[in-house]
């Protein structure tokens, strides 16, 4: 099935954005890549957009709102929870405590970002490929 909704990427590291955007564009050519520097801007977008994002991919540690807090707020927002947009952590560094906390928030995967561009591409390919095969409400054309 063709997936065309945007990928919402939240990461406050501009260098990461520079590296990851072309990788994601090559892996998911039908999904616009929307980068946000912080969780506040991302949740404002998610609450107001009519678009149906394919995936949300987030760092854990960011200035102001952390990725974990962002996930918590999505879970507490009745409308956003109902939309069930797959939420994935893609982060470096990663700690045991974060993984445990993240899975308490019923996420769709937690990945420790690798150091080389080649490995990062392999990780993102696996994520996009898996979610292209899974069913979630944003995959449907009609409400």
């Amino acid at each position: 099935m063709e997936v065309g909704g945007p990928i919402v990427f939240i990461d406050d590291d501009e260098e990461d954005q520079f590296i990851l955007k072309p990788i994601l564009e090559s892996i998911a050519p039908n999904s616009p890549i929307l980068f946000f520097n912080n969780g506040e801007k991302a949740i404002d977008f998610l609450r107001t957009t009519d678009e149906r994002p394919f995936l949300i991919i987030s760092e854990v540690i960011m200035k102001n709102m952390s990725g974990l807090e962002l996930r918590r707020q999505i879970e507490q927002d009745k409308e956003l929870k109902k939309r069930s947009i797959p939420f994935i952590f893609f982060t470096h560094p990663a700690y045991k405590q974060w993984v445990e906390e993240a899975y308490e928030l019923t996420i769709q995967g937690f990945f420790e970002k690798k150091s080389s561009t080649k490995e990062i591409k392999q990780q993102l390919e696996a994520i996009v490929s898996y979610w292209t095969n899974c069913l979630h409400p944003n995959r449907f054309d009609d409400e």
Partner: protein
Amino acid sequence: MLMARRRRIWIIDDNPDYCNVVKRISADKRPDWELEFFPDSRKLLDLLEKDVAMVPDLIVLDLIMPEPDGIKMLHYIKRNRQLRPIPTIIVSESDSDTDASLCYQAGANSYIVKPASLEELRHFVAVTWQYWLDIAATPSHQRL
């Protein structure tokens, strides 16, 4: 640090043919991984209530089963302190958006339409095992 413990997967599904094929495919790919099959979710609930079940690394749960059905089991799993963090994959013959939405709202980690052919089932086992048990960090098996 990678833990040496064998990976354990629970398959909660009342279709014996499907379970046998999953067992064979998984054994070919990962002979060292342990699959536990629960054709009747009541038996699993009994084990859990006696606190004698070994917590797995991944749960693959069929949605359409005799009572308690998959959605009831999912609610039970996601309300249970020990099981809640375990990635729980719903596998269902239903491709209804309503079913998928209800499962995600109940805490499912992913939802996949049950493979209809042997080839699709092989693909499902390969990508699901790879995504959740090889690449992702999970609470039971972290490479941190």
